[in-house]
């Protein structure tokens, strides 16, 4: 107030700096697509280039999407918006026509999803497996067990903490199925805790509480170094973790990008992609995180 000239100057400087940041950001945003498309010969841009892919947290947290999506985008000219949520929410989005294509791992719910007419063109993509993990000390004494239901029964009677996703994801749905087979109602028990979060966050919480949980092997391997949890029970056929890609039924709404979704399904089961899937993670973890399965049936996987 005392010095109007100075005030004016300050205000202008402030305004100028804000504008500068905005311009820099705008330029940064604007040049990005150009850079990526200049890398190789540009494919003809599709009429409707945006695809919404609703998928599970494990495909993102393991780093798989970061490898596959840029290749798909370069090959086809589509731009994918991957929304990483639980399989339950992914299918809810698909059911409302808010996503174009799904990459999920909850076979029982997927069958219901297909029966309800929400999806078309469901294809088996890959599998890995679920494992039951817990603290090194293994207070419940389940180490080496190969029957998942028995392992859960033992955890429930040992007073050890079991940490559940509690988010209706594919992993959570499998866990609930196992409790049902064990005839145990864990909800409300003091040793049963629900996080309501993704697999990575749930693993952190499990490690902190010294508890047990069920996880897909891919997320486990990519977070093993920080959580220090150990694989205690595995190899039960019921623990197979099967991923399907599903095209949302284009009849639901004309806003669904059917062509883009079909291109994505074709890409996921294509020979080149399947080869990459099988190699993914070998350099970093010494073993593959996913096993390519295009063209097989679920029954064939179960008999492996």
């Amino acid at each position, binding site marked *: *107030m*005392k*010095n109007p000239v*100075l*005030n004016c100057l*300050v*205000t202008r*400087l*402030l305004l100028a*700096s*804000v504008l500068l*940041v*905005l311009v*820099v*950001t*705008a330029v*940064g*945003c604007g040049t*990005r697509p150009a850079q990526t498309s200049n890398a190789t010969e540009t494919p003809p841009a599709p009429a409707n280039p*945006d695809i*919404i892919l609703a998928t599970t*947290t494990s495909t*993102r*947290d393991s780093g798989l*999407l*970061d490898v596959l*999506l840029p290749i798909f985008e370069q090959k086809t000219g589509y731009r994918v*918006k*991957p*929304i*990483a949520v639980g399989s339950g929410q992914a299918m809810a989005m698909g059911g*409302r*026509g*808010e996503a174009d294509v799904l990459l999920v791992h909850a076979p029982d719910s997927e069958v219901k999803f297909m029966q309800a007419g929400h999806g078309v063109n469901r294809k088996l993509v890959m599998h890995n497996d679920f494992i039951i993990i817990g603290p090194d000390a293994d207070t419940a004494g389940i180490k080496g067990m190969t029957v998942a239901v028995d392992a859960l029964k033992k955890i429930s009677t040992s007073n050890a903490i079991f940490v559940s996703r509690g988010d209706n994801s594919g992993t959570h749905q499998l866990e609930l199925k196992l409790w049902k087979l064990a005839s145990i109602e864990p909800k409300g028990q003091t040793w049963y805790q629900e996080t309501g*979060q*993704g*697999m*990575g*966050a749930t*693993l*952190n919480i499990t490690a902190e509480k010294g508890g047990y949980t069920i996880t897909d092997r891919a997320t486990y391997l*990519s*977070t093993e*170094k*920080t*959580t220090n949890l150990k694989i205690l029970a595995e190899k039960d056929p019921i623990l197979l973790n099967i991923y399907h890609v599903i095209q949302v039924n284009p009849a639901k*709404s004309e*806003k*669904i990008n059917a062509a883009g979704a079909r291109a994505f399904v074709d890409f996921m089961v294509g020979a080149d992609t399947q080869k990459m899937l099988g190699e993914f993670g070998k350099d970093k973890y010494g073993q593959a995180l996913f096993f390519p399965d295009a063209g097989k049936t679920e029954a064939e996987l179960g008999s492996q």
Partner: protein
Amino acid sequence: MDLIIEGIVQAFKLLFQGDAEVVRIMLLSLGVSLSATVISLFLGVMLGTALGLTRFPGRRFLVSIVNTGMGAPPTVVGLIVTIFLWRNGPLGLLRILYTPVAMVIAQCLISLPIITGFTLASIQQIDRKMQLQLMALGASRMQMVWLLLKESRLPLLAAVMAGFGAIISEVGASMMVGGNITGQTRVLTTAIVMETSKGEFATAIALSIILMVLVYGVNLLLTWAQQRGKTS
């Protein structure tokens, strides 16, 4: 403790080696939140001034809505904006869900009540006699409003800081309307949540440090502007 040190080291590495992804995330965070602050500053100052200088039935109700909005949970704002922007939602035709534009809209809605509330309070704390005096001296209505706003420059800059602070640090709405998409809508806060859930604690700490330095830098600039005239 070793994690925090590792995080600090990594923050410096990411910043000074110019990691392209981190720079992009940083610029998007700044761009989205500054745009939202500028937009809600214009709207908020107008709304706050109007509410501060006028008297009409239902005004107190409106003021109570603004004051409640100052504490609106970003997650709720995010959910509402998401539902509106869904393809099959009321504003689905715009096709802006999961874009930075949607994030700017959500953040505007979060900071607008804060800036409106601050403006309203600062206009009202000016002695009413000043308003009368200005009118008596022959100021037009626009001139009077302009002078009153100049008089409340200090609290207005505080409003900008509070509004910007609320949205640059907000994660719930950005996660929902943006989707945390690599290279498109990932900002510092959503990246921090994701890296934490992946167990990449050092990266998460590094990004947190970058975020705090960024917020400090912007506030330093604003504080400098706010206090400059007062010290001389």
